């Protein structure tokens, strides 16, 4: 299993052996092992759902393993609690923030190990210590502010400070950079390197291989709940890591298919036309801040960008799921700005939502029922649902998209992630539509399914439909798009022809370092 012993003679800080953990039917960890030496930055990589977060949450005491052994600094700590982990100096910054939004920064800092004086919370002491700590680390925070009022970057800082405040000597960071801007990422690297110099240990979960190469000393790769390789960063390459992740050779230099060579000028007849759209988000006003574009028949417009720059709000607004403050949208020349979700569908809009579990599927509905979600009015005679037509439709889609199990009456909940996504794709592609909004269409889906979905998207484009593609995966955007827009801070930082785009060109726009138009 583990191939490379970690090089130095430094003592082992973390050793997890043969960890098993399942959630009901899902085996998140199946004999995973990891070993991290003290004073190193260790990257943990793997596809979505590979079991990275689960393994680290076990280390952090959030879950007890079903089987396996855990050692920290040579001590057997199998199945410890979060409190014990924190006391032993293990701190974790979770993929989803673990901050209480209604409490202040200081209150979040002290939660769980509150200093008291005469039975009362000693808030003054906390504020003092936090200020000190924040000076020492260079992570600036305001102790008295409410967490709900913080930006994502600030919240991230609070999360890291929170673990340091508890005296963490082993810091686990679960995808900390997904929501950070480049300067914030640089700041984070600085802090992590500082910690490493002080002999502290860091485990970093990330999907970005360039980050792995830049910051880590050693790497563990996970696949399907197992750790399948342990590598030393200086001795490996991104291609080798990727191969380990997916289990076969992958062309990191993506093949583009037959990229169209349409020019950047607005085509005369566009299928989707968006003007000056302003949309408020849950965190901040104007999450989408005056975006306008159009997509021609037979064109894919890809939107690249760091998550949280307004992509979600933009798509939800276009789909009718979020009110717009101003601006207009039209599909095939028809203004749909004021239409309901249902009428938009009838007007020719189709939508693959980014979160299939929350939006794309009713998990307790059957495959057949999910395959008509959003089109239920088309499967109705009078007020009755037409069951025969629904089953017929299900059989056809199951066939066409190779959904497994091929049983219309199975609830969607019982399907694997890939097959769940196929239901969504099948449904959205089989309705009569002009414009397809595709958000993260291959997230959490295995490689075979990705190729299948990409092929369907290209077919659709070639059939003369317009596609708006949003993906956190830059490679995917590059692979599919005819034009690429980069979204940053709610605006389009750039719109480029595919020929002119590459990771190097797009990078600065994604980080807000460069602006165009």
């Amino acid at each position, binding site marked *: 299993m583990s191939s490379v012993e970690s090089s130095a003679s430094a003592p082992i800080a973390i050793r997890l052996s043969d960890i098993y953990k399942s959630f009901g039917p899902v085996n998140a960890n199946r004999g995973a092992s990891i070993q991290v030496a003290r004073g190193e930055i260790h990257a943990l990589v793997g596809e979505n759902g590979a079991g990275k977060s689960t393994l680290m949450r076990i280390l*952090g*005491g*959030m879950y007890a393993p079903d089987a396996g052994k855990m050692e920290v600094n040579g001590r057997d700590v199998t199945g410890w*609690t*979060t*409190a*014990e*982990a*924190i*006391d032993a100096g293990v701190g*974790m910054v*979770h993929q989803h*923030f*673990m*901050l*209480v*939004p*209604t*409490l202040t920064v200081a*209150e*979040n800092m*002290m*939660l*769980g*190990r*509150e200093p*008291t004086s005469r*039975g*009362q*919370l000693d808030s003054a002491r906390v504020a003092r210590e936090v200020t000190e700590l924040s000076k020492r680390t260079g992570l600036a925070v305001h102790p008295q502010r409410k967490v709900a009022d913080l930006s994502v970057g600030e919240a991230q800082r609070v999360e890291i400070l*929170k673990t340091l405040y*508890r005296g963490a000597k082993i810091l686990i960071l679960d995808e900390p950079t997904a929501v950070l801007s480049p300067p914030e990422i640089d700041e984070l690297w600085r802090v992590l390197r500082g910690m490493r110099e002080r002999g502290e240990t860091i485990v970093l979960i990330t999907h970005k291989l360039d980050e792995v190469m830049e910051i880590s000393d050693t790497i563990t790769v996970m696949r399907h709940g197992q750790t399948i390789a342990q590598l030393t960063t200086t001795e490996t390459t991104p291609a080798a890591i990727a191969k380990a992740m997916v289990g076969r050779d992958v062309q990191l230099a993506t093949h583009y298919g037959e990229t169209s060579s349409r020019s950047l000028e607005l085509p005369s007849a566009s299928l989707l036309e968006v003007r000056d759209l302003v949309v408020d988000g849950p965190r901040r006003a104007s999450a989408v801040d005056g975006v306008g574009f159009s997509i021609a028949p037979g064109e894919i417009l890809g939107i690249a960008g760091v998550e949280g720059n307004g992509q979600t709000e933009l798509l939800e607004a276009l789909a009718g799921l979020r009110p717009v403050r101003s601006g207009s949208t039209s599909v095939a020349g028809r203004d749909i700005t004021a239409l309901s979700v249902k009428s938009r569908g009838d007007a020719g809009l189709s939508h693959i939502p980014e979160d299939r579990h929350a939006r794309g599927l009713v998990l307790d509905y059957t495959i057949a029922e999910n395959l008509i979600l959003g089109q239920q009015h088309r499967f109705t005679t009078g007020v009755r649902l037409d069951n025969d037509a629904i089953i017929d439709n299900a059989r056809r889609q199951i066939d066409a998209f190779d959904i497994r199990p091929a049983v219309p009456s199975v609830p969607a909940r019982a399907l694997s992630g890939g097959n769940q996504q196929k239901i969504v794709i099948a449904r959205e592609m089989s309705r009569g539509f002009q414009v397809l909004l595709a958000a993260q269409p291959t997230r959490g889906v295995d490689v075979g399914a990705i190729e299948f979905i990409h092929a369907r998207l290209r077919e659709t484009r070639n059939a003369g439909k317009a596609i708006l593609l949003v993906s956190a995966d830059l490679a995917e955007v590059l692979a599919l798009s005819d034009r690429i827009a980069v979204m940053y801070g709610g605006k389009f930082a750039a719109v480029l022809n595919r020929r002119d785009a590459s990771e190097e060109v797009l990078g600065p726009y994604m980080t807000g370092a460069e602006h165009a138009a």
Partner: protein
Amino acid sequence: MIVLAFLAQTLRIAIPYLFAASGGVISERSGLIGLGLEGYMLGGAFCGAVASYYSGSPWVGLLGAVAGGAALALLYALTAIRFRADQVVVGIAVNLLVTGATRFFLRLAFHSSANSPRVPGFGAEQSGTGLASLARNPLIWLGILAIAVMAWLLYRTPYGLRVRAAGEHPEAALSVGVPVDRVRYVAAALSGMLAALGGAYLALDQHQFSAEMTAGRGFIALAATIFGRWDPFRAALACLFFAAAETLQIQLQGAQVIPSQFVEMIPYALTIVALAGVVGRAVPPAALGKATE
């Protein structure tokens, strides 16, 4: 004089609300819906009267009430936390349970479906109606204290911080080692004890238990909790406000200004108004009613 009498009466009526609402605040702040308050109150009234009857001391009665309220609240918490039962369902069932059980045991112990015998209580003989008479009833002081202590507990102590975190973002609390379930059990027990003290006030002030003697006061306390936006002081103000409306109704009843039915509606109508956001949005604790994973 008139004003003082009005204040005294308002305070007397408000005391059970203050107890129960402070219990409602801590329960809901921890993430447990306070639908069982009415049951805890009635259970507290019953246990208080029975304990006082058999011991001959109202202080033992208070202990009995507190124990009864805690037991009921823990039954609720156990089903809601350990068994993940729906809190609304169990909350309502606890109320039904207490209504039936108090009458049953009343029959069993005293051969009556309606009233207990007279029990030792706090209201002193011939102490008058004014504020001075109130001062001699320790439960009045306890009731006022309950709110202040609750505010202190919630905002100034480690346990309070944990309660606030547990009701708002239990995973976050868990991730820093806060035993969320235990925090909630304690909050439930506290809310049961406090509400039971409110019930005990009724019973010991009356020197007896009467079936269904809480007459919906637990729901008014829940209304005050919400109207007070889950803050002890604001909830106390809501209690006083509701009590003042009742006092007004009692004082004006002879005059028949408005039918008493409409006065009875006031707290409930105001709660709806509060929930509809007309006087500032009432945003409940985010994890209210949800079991942790």
